């Protein structure tokens, strides 16, 4: 198994084992990039329970997540194993209420009182 395959396998397992996963620079409490911070802030605001993966701690994951999803940038949000988007898409979905709808559809609990933009 190549190193990239090993990383892709790890990503597949991680997004299967956690309903909501955010690959980001930094952590949910200490983001280290403005784009990652925006998505973490939206998820924190909604009160979604999510796993944060700090790509700055692992060069293999930092590069591997880009080939995994064919997406050139970080952050990347996954819900129930599905790639939802990066910062621009997540923000647009949140502003239009689509992110909240997606969480509802996937049966993921969040703080509904905070869902109003």
């Amino acid at each position, binding site marked *: 198994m190549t190193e990239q395959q090993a990383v892709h396998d790890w990503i597949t397992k991680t997004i299967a084992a956690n309903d909501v996963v955010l690959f980001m620079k930094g952590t949910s409490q200490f983001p280290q990039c403005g784009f990652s911070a925006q998505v973490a802030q939206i998820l924190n605001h909604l009160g979604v329970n999510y796993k944060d993966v700090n790509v700055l701690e692992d060069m293999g994951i930092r590069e591997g997540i880009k080939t995994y999803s064919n*997406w*050139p940038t970080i952050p990347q949000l996954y819900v129930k194993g599905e790639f939802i988007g990066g910062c621009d*898409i997540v923000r*647009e979905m949140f502003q239009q209420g689509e992110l909240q709808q997606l969480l509802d559809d996937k049966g993921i609990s969040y703080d509904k009182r905070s869902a109003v933009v």
Partner: protein
Amino acid sequence: MPMDAKEIERLIKASIPDAEVSIRDLAGDGDHYAAHVVSSAFVGKTRVQQHQMVYEALGGRMGDVLHALALTTSPRKD
């Protein structure tokens, strides 16, 4: 390394010929852009797929020389 807005537009249109591209230079430094792209090629595609088409048009520059391109896309409704 900054990238010219005209070059971003040219690359997108080379790959998505009917694209309407509007680009704002957010910080006036030639390095932080917001682009909105409208095309009939986006019809029936998810947002992720629409953005992937634009990133593909930019040929690997996104996340590299283009660190800060905020992107929104819309399918053209005729």
